[in-house]
């Protein structure tokens, strides 16, 4: 089995290095094909590992070699495939296989075709390291690695100022969180003497709660950055500057869920500190609502989906924070499927519309893009949590978990957010695919995507439809590892809740259709009443948070840097050094006259010296005399 572990892990690396060889050459179709095949190889190996885990329940643990060893520190490159990591491996390799194949079509005309696959496969490799590592340091390698690849892929079209800006923003914001994670690692090491999961988890039980709380907080700060939780969330929406397959893979299905994975992986820690867990759940719930509210009005198709990702990540943290780790993982898995599907669908639309992103400028695309329409509707139904699609099972369990834990506020907010989710998802579908064909005003001739791209998307479609029935087998698999238990609510009550939720979601969908799928929709021009309302302005400007960051953090930082350089470094520190030097120099210059060799000058100086020495002698004499008495 170890063989498959190494294949699953290193096939993406080989793929990346292979594509790297051709980065400076024009497009070569075979790089895309070879890369995709290697990723699919990784998928197959992961599936073999999954069946092994399902059959035997025995985790596979290998230690490849030593990475760092000094003092008491020992960090190997060690890999662990257990129920949790194999789930993540399946998610990662499945979505990335789809995205790789899809990208062959999507990046068809791009100059950087080869470079794209090099980055994309490098990302998959980093992600595999992240989920397969058997220690926190290894996780951190993957953690930073995905950050790097995210930087490279957001800024893939580096001629665009907005893209490179967004790339740097994402990297730096993630770095802020990474510092938290690093401190968490330091705390773990100095308290337990190891960074290996098994060793650290065993030692956690002996540590005082205060220490554990700090560890939990710092690790979660790391998770907040990767998973774009408030207040480190702004990068995710800006990250939509990257090519759409990237958004599907990195900023929806895999990388952003790394934070959730970290919490799930450290569940032995978080179950010891439920108060931190409650904080995580509360923050997650807040983000779910907060992000959904921004998605309501946004006029950028990709940003709407990005906010919905943010909102769903909030759901996952809510579940994980409440101790329902398996539910969080299940929602992560289901979400990866339908959200990637939605993004790739959006990619088809963008291709058809010549990179137009405003859904108000589309409309009626159903006729030309039937398959994309079907996929996006199913993806949206799954996202909205309509029975029997994927999101229904996962989201409903989160609600149950909140309810049965008596966290009524969390339950209420999440339920309300489910309605918002349904509304904005179908607002998007209605605006893009139904109503008048507004795109004709802009002289665009849309067309359906390549057949093979649609076929490539089909596994995701399958996931979005059928993943619900896997809930029980999934629970059976991870139950033991994650100390999971099923949530039992009294039968009638459960039925009422179910019907109520479905009704609520259904109404939201209906409302979205009524409001946006009609022929009266015009391209907004900023004059309508709603566009001038305070709430709209607040939401469209993302609560003015990016503005505040720019105004109160970025600018002051830049000004302070200038000040430090121009005023402190040049005018104070360096000027002092030069000042001392010039005092010495000038003293030399001035006193040089004394040594002119002119007898009368020298005699005059001699007299001066004599007087000074004599007076000093007298002063010292008196001082000694009087102080001595």
């Amino acid at each position, binding site marked *: 089995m170890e063989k498959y572990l190494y294949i699953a892990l290193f096939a993406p690396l080989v793929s990346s290095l292979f594509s790297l060889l051709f980065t400076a050459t024009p497009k070569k179709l075979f790089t895309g094909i070879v890369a995709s095949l290697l990723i699919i190889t990784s998928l197959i190996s992961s599936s073999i590992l999954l069946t092994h885990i399902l059959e035997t329940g025995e985790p596979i643990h290998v230690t490849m070699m030593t*990475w*760092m060893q000094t003092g*008491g520190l020992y960090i190997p490159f060690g890999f662990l495939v257990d129920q949790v990591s194999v789930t993540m491996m399946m998610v990662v390799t499945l979505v990335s296989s789809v995205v790789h194949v899809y990208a062959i079509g999507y990046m068809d005309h791009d100059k950087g075709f080869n470079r794209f696959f090099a980055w994309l496969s490098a990302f998959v490799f980093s992600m595999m390291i992240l989920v397969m590592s058997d220690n926190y340091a290894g996780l951190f390698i993957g953690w930073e690695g995905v950050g790097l690849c995210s930087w490279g892929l957001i800024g893939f079209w580096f001629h665009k100022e907005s893209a490179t800006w967004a790339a740097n923003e994402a990297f730096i914001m993630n770095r802020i969180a990474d510092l938290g994670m*690093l401190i968490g690692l330091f705390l773990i090491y100095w308290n337990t003497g190891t960074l290996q999961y098994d060793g650290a988890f065993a030692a956690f039980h002996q540590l005082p709660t205060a220490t554990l709380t700090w560890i939990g907080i710092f690790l979660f700060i790391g998770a907040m950055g990767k998973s774009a939780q408030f207040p480190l969330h702004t990068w995710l929406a800006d990250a939509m500057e990257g090519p759409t397959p990237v958004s599907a893979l990195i900023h929806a299905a895999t990388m952003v869920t790394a934070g959730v994975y970290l919490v799930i992986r450290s569940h032995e820690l978080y179950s010891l500190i439920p108060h931190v867990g409650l904080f995580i759940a509360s923050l997650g719930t807040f983000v779910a609502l907060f992000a959904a509210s921004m998605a309501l009005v946004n006029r950028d198709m990709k940003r709407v989906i990005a906010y919905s990702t943010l909102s769903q990540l909030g759901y996952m943290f809510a579940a994980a924070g409440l101790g329902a780790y398996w539910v969080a993982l299940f929602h992560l898995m289901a979400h990866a499927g339908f959200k990637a599907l939605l993004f790739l669908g959006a990619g088809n639309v963008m291709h058809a519309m010549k990179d137009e992103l405003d859904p108000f400028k589309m409309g009626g695309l159903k006729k030309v893009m039937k398959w994309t329409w079907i996929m996006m509707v199913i993806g949206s139904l799954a996202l909205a949590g309509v029975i029997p699609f994927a999101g229904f099972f996962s989201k409903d369990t989160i609600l149950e978990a909140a309810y049965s834990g008596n966290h009524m506020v969390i339950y209420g907010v999440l339920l309300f957010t489910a309605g918002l989710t349904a509304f904005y998802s179908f607002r998007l579908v209605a605006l893009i695919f139904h109503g008048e064909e507004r795109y004709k005003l802009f002289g665009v001739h849309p067309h359906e995507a390549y057949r093979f791209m649609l076929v490539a998307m089909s596994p995701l479609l399958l996931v979005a439809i059928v993943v619900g029935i896997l809930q029980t087998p999934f629970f059976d698999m991870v139950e033991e590892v994650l100390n999971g238990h099923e949530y039992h609510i009294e039968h009638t009550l459960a039925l009422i809740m179910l019907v109520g939720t479905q009704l609520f979601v259904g109404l939201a969908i209906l409302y979205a259709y009524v409001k946006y799928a009609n022929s009266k929709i015009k391209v907004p021009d900023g004059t309508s009443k709603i566009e001038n309302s305070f709430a709209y302005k607040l939401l469209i400007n993302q609560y003015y948070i990016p503005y505040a960051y720019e105004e109160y953090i970025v600018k002051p930082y830049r000004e*302070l840097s*200038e000040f430090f350089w121009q005023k402190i470094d040049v005018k104070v520190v360096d000027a002092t050094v030069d000042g001392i030097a010039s005092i010495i120099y000038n003293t030399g210059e001035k006193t040089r006259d004394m040594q002119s060799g002119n007898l009368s000058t020298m005699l005059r100086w001699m007299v001066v010296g004599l007087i000074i020495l004599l007076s000093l002698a007298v002063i010292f004499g008196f001082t000694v005399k009087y102080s001595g008495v």
Partner: protein
Amino acid sequence: MLDHILSILIFFPALAAVFGFMIQKESMRTYGVAVALIEFVLSLVLWYAFDNNVSGMQFVENIPLIPAFGINYSLGIDGISLFIIILSAFFTFLGIVSLTDTPKVKYMIITLLFLQMTMAGVFAALDAIVFYTFWELSLVPMLYIIGAWGGPLRIYASIKFFLYTFAGSLVMLVGMLFMAYFYHQAAGVWSFSILDWYRLVLPENFQLWLFVAFFIGFAIKVPMFPFHTWLPYAHGQAPTIGSVILAAILLKMGTYAFVRFSLPLFPDAAAYFMIPIAILAVIMIIYTSMVAYAQKDIKQVVAYSSIAHMGVIILGTFALNVEGVSGSIFLMLGHGVVAGGLFMLVGVIYDRRHTKLMSEFGGLAHVMPRYATIFGIMMMASVGLPLTINFVGEFLSLLGFYQQSHILTLLAGTGIIVGAIYMLAAYKKAFFGEVTNEANKNLPDINKKELFGIIPLVIVAIWLGVYPKPVLGPINNSVTSIIKLMHAKATTELAKERIPDLTKPRVFLMKKTINKEVN
């Protein structure tokens, strides 16, 4: 030969440099490359013959110079100095190979070979006077490199560099003389041998004064805030090769000397001054990173980034535990490779455009994709991405210091954020966007000769990031013995507490929790 390999390493380049005067101009480059290659191979032989299991000094040579005062020509290396010597030979070789069209190339090569002599001498010396001699001699070739081949302000920059560091080292010399005097008082004989000094336990107040004297000399060399202002001038005016060697090797003399002298000689003082020095290190990290962000000249960005990295090295050194000190030594190598590489890369673009202002560039990734890729890799190594050489050193240095202070480490850790800010901003300005400047439209990509200089550095930067063990192992052994020595010599309570006792089984528990430190 192995008995005298250190002497050969030191004097072979010097001798070759003297013969260099007789070589014709045309064949000088070949001659220089050949000499530097032999020197580099010799340093590799040294590594091959080095016994990884020995933590003490190896290849020791000892010839009395002035027996009456106990001054000996005494050499030896341990795991700490070994790799810096290899690195210096490596950089001299790469520097000469990738040397671009320089006026008076013959004299440049001769100067570089002399410089290599002094560098090998500093890191191999086991006698304070020998150490001091090479330490000061190293200023001379650098003075020439900046003063003769530098930019418009070269005279100012080179004299500033020389006088500033020279003034600092004089204070250090006074410290050395006192140290020998104290040794004489205690042992009855004169000795300048560092190993003899190691055995001397001084009272705390003597230690404090001597520590300060040494500190001034080292801190200016490193350079530590607020003694750092000579560095931006030196880098700004020095030719590429000068900056490369300065950043890669010469700055390491200061940090190396901290480990070789300050820690084992004055353990009580090191523990006493730990927090103030760490505060200086934190200032170096945050303040210079911000200054780097404000720079308009890409070479100055790299120059200031060097100071910030030196801050992390100092922090690791004064962690006073094996993790931190090993990390700081590893980071010395890492920073050498990465900063040296970055200076070389800046040189590539300077050769083409004769400007280093970022506003002159933009969109270089379109015209020079290979160059942009390599620069990107080195930049990421500089930012300290895992699996690159700098990460190992930074991680261990910060990890080590975390045992001493939560808050200072947290502050120093912001280096990974501010470091990313200035580097990414600089990269964005130079490489991303459209090509706006006409002059950049037809720039040739990085050529073979330049690749020959830079690719080995890229390989080392990744190799030692993925597999640091061959280097970290010997370092770890030698550092462990130093920490043991320090703990044994420590007299004050504070030092006993701050320097871990490695003879006892390790107990992993933070001495104070975050809550306590905050209160």
